[in-house]
C-alpha cells in the first residue's frame, strides 16, 4: 500500500514537473485526428510491433506501434502535411514493403482519421529494406521546401540582425515576435476577419506595438541606463519567457489554425508537391525581403541604418539620429517577424512555443551569414533552410534541426564572422 502510494506520488510529482517545464502538452489526449491502418501479411497474418512515425513540418514527432491485431494509430494534434515513416527495422524478418517509397512519404491529413495502405510482401532474403533516398525528384522537392522554409527564416532573421547591428543586442525574444504575430492574426481571424485581411492588420499592429512600442518601453530606457549588453541579453530571455507563458495563459497549450486555408488541398506542379498558400506566402516573403533590401540601399533612413550598423558613434557624429534609426529598425524588424509568424501559422499551426522552436534556427541563420551584417541574415537563412531540408536525405527528419545547429557550430569554428561578416576579433 505504502509502495503504491509512493509510486503514485512519484508519478504525480513527475507529472507536475513535466507540466511546469513544458507547459502541459499531451499530444495523445489532444488528438483530433490521426493516421490509422492495419498491417498484415499477404497471408492475412497480423504484423506486430512495427513502428510508424509522423513528423510535422516543425520536426515534432508522434508515433504508433502496430498491436497484436496489426492495427496502428498515430495520433496527430491537427491536420497538416506530415512525413509518415515506417521504421523498416521493426518489420519482422522476412517481411518487406511492396513499395519501397512507402517507408517514407509525405501525407496530407485534413483532420479526422486518415487511413493509409501499406503493402507488405513475405519472403525475400532480408527484413531490411534499403530506402532509396538520393532520387532526383526527392532532391528537387526538398530544395523547394528548403527555399520556402529559408524565406520564413529570413523574415524572422532580418529584424534580429538589424537590431544586433544597430544596438548590439542579441535578442533572445525574437522568436516570440514571430509567435506574437501569429497569435495577433489569430485574434483578428477569430474575431471574424478573413485571414487575408487579418494578416496585414496584424503585421502593422505588431510592427508598431511589439516593435516600436517594445523599443520605446523597454530597450530605450535600458540603453539610457547604460545597461551592459550581456545584462540586456538576459533581460531579453526574461522577456521571452514572460511572453511565451502569457500566450499559454490566454490561448492554452494547444495548436491553433486559422479559419481559412487550414486544410488546403495539395498542388502538384511538375515534380513539386506543395500547397497554393505556401507558394503565395513565399511570393509575398520575397516581395517583403526585396522591399527591405531596396529600402536599405536607397532610402535616406536605410542608408543611415547601414551607417549606424557600421559604427554607431561615427554615425552619430555625422548627424544621424541614432535613436530614430533604432526605432525604425525595431518597427520594421517586428513587422517582418510577425509576417514570418503568420507564415508559420498558416503553413503549419500556431502554438505558444513556435517562436522558441524557431529561435535557434534563426541564430544559426544569422551566425552563418554574419551577426550584424544585414544581407548576411538573408543569405544565411536561405542556406540554412535548404541545408536543413536536404539533410533529411541522410539523417532522420526528426533530427533536421540538429543539422542546422551543427552547421552553426562548424561555421563558428572555421569562420566565426560568418559568410558575409568582416573579419574581426570575436574571441
Amino acid at each position, binding site marked *: 500500500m*505504502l509502495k503504491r502510494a*509512493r509510486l503514485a*506520488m*512519484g508519478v504525480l*510529482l*513527475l507529472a507536475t*514537473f*513535466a*507540466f*511546469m*517545464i*513544458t*507547459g*502541459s502538452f499531451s499530444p495523445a489526449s489532444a488528438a483530433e485526428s490521426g493516421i490509422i491502418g492495419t498491417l498484415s501479411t499477404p497471408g492475412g497474418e497480423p504484423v506486430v510491433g512495427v*513502428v510508424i*512515425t509522423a513528423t510535422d513540418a516543425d*520536426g515534432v*514527432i508522434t*508515433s504508433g506501434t502496430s498491436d497484436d491485431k496489426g492495427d496502428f494509430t498515430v495520433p496527430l494534434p491537427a491536420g497538416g502535411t506530415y512525413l509518415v515513416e515506417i521504421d523498416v527495422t521493426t518489420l519482422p524478418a522476412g517481411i518487406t514493403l511492396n513499395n519501397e517509397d512507402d517507408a517514407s512519404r509525405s501525407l496530407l491529413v485534413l483532420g479526422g482519421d486518415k487511413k493509409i495502405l501499406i503493402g507488405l510482401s513475405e519472403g525475400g532474403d532480408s527484413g531490411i529494406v534499403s530506402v532509396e533516398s538520393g532520387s532526383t525528384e526527392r532532391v528537387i522537392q526538398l530544395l523547394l521546401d528548403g527555399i520556402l522554409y529559408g524565406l520564413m527564416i529570413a523574415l524572422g532573421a532580418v529584424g534580429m540582425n538589424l537590431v544586433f547591428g544597430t544596438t*548590439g543586442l*542579441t535578442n533572445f525574444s525574437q522568436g516570440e515576435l514571430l509567435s506574437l504575430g501569429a497569435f495577433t492574426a489569430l485574434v483578428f481571424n477569430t474575431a471574424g476577419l478573413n485571414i487575408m485581411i487579418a494578416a496585414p492588420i496584424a503585421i502593422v499592429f505588431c510592427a508598431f506595438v511589439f516593435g516600436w512600442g517594445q523599443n520605446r518601453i523597454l530597450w530605450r530606457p*535600458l540603453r539610457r*541606463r547604460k*545597461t*551592459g*549588453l*550581456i*545584462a540586456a*541579453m*538576459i*533581460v531579453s*530571455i*526574461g*522577456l*521571452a*519567457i*514572460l511572453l*511565451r*507563458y502569457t500566450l*499559454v*495563459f490566454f490561448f*492554452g497549450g494547444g495548436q491553433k489554425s486559422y479559419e481559412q486555408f487550414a486544410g488546403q488541398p495539395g498542388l502538384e506542379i511538375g515534380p513539386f508537391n506543395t500547397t497554393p498558400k505556401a507558394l503565395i506566402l513565399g511570393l509575398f516573403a520575397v516581395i517583403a525581403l526585396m522591399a527591405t533590401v531596396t529600402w536599405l540601399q536607397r532610402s535616406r533612413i536605410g542608408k543611415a541604418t547601414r551607417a549606424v550598423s557600421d559604427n554607431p558613434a561615427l554615425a552619430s557624429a555625422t548627424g544621424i539620429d541614432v535613436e530614430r534609426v533604432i526605432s525604425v529598425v525595431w518597427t520594421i524588424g517586428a513587422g517582418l517577424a510577425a509576417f514570418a509568424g503568420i507564415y508559420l501559422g498558416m503553413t503549419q499551426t500556431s502554438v505558444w512555443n513556435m517562436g522558441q522552436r524557431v529561435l*535557434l534556427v534563426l541564430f544559426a541563420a544569422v*551566425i552563418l551569414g554574419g*551577426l550584424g551584417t544585414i544581407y548576411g541574415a538573408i543569405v544565411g537563412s536561405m542556406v540554412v533552410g535548404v541545408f536543413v531540408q536536404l539533410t533529411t536525405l541522410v539523417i*532522420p527528419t*526528426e*533530427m533536421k*534541426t*540538429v543539422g542546422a*545547429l*551543427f552547421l*552553426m*557550430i562548424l561555421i*563558428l*569554428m572555421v569562420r*566565426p564572422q560568418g559568410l558575409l561578416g568582416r573579419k574581426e*576579433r*570575436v*574571441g
Partner: protein
Amino acid sequence: MDYMQIFSLTITQAFGVTALIYLFAAIGLNVQFGYTGLLNFGQVAFVAAGAYAIGVIVLTFDLSLWLAIVVGMVVSTLLALLLGIPTLRLRADYLAIVTIAASELLRLVVRSIAFKDVFGGAQGLNGKLGRQFHDLNPLPADIALPVFTWSRQDLWVVIVGWGLALLATLLVWGLVRSPWGRVVKGIREDEAAVLSLGKNVFVYKLQALVIGGAIAAFGGILWAVAKQSVQPDTFQPDVTFFVYTILLLGGAARVFGPIVGSIIFWFLLAGFGELLYALINNGYIEFLAAQQVGSMRFMLMGLGLMLLMIFRPQGIFGDRRELALDAR
C-alpha cells in the same frame, strides 16, 4: 483556507528534490558564470548528461548505479571538453548561442527514434533507476515530519542531496580562494591582463567549465535517482534560464548565492502557485482557471528575471563590481 497547508506545501518544495536539482546546476553555473564569467547557456545539457548516464547505464545496460554515477561524471567532463574546446575562444554572445544550441542538439538526439534503443526516445527511460540508492535508506518506515510533507524516499534523497550540496559549496569556497580562483576571477575582470601574465586563459576557462559541468551533472544524477525517470523534454533550454534566475537572485560570485537564491526562488514560485490554487479552489478568485496558474508562475518568473537584471543584477547578497555583465 488552510494557510498552514499552503505554507507546508511551499516550504516542502523550497527545500525539496526539484529545488536541489536546480541548486546543483546553480552551484556549477556560479563557478562558470559567477567566478569565471563564462556565459554558459547550455547548463541543462550537463544536467541531462548526468541524468541520462544513470538511465542508460542502469536501465539500458543493467549495470550498477555506482558505476553509473562515475560514468555520469566522465560524460559531463567529456561534454565540457567537447563544448569548450571549439567555443571558449569566442566572444561571450557567441559562446552563449553555441552552448544553448548544443544543449538543444543533445535533447533532439536523445529523444530521436534513431537512438530509441539506448535513450528511450521521446518517452525517455523510466524504471527503478535509483533502487540501489533507496535500498540504503536507513530511515524508519513510519517516519513523519512536522511541516514538511516528504515521503520516506524523498526525505532520504533530500538529506543526502543537501549534504552533497553543502559539500559542493565548500568545494567552491575552497576553489575560489585558492590561487586558481584568483586567476579565474582575473579572467572575468580582464582577460588580456591575465593573458599578459603568462597564464593559459583557455585552459583555466576549460577547467571552470568542466568543474561547473560536473557539479551540474550531479543535479542530473539526483534527478534520475529521485524521480526514477529521465525524460528528454524536461531538459528544455528554459531550465538553464531558471538556473540563471536562481543564481542572479542569490547573487552571482557569492559562495552562498546559489543556496540562498534557490530557497527564495522556490519559496516564492511555489508559494505563489499554492496560494493562487487555494484562492481559486475556495472560490475567492473566479476569473482564473486552475490550469492558468502554471503559466502565471512562469510569467512571474520571466518578469522577475527581467526586473532583477535591470534593477539589481547583483542579487540579494552580490557585489555589483563582481559581475561579468559587459561583453568583451
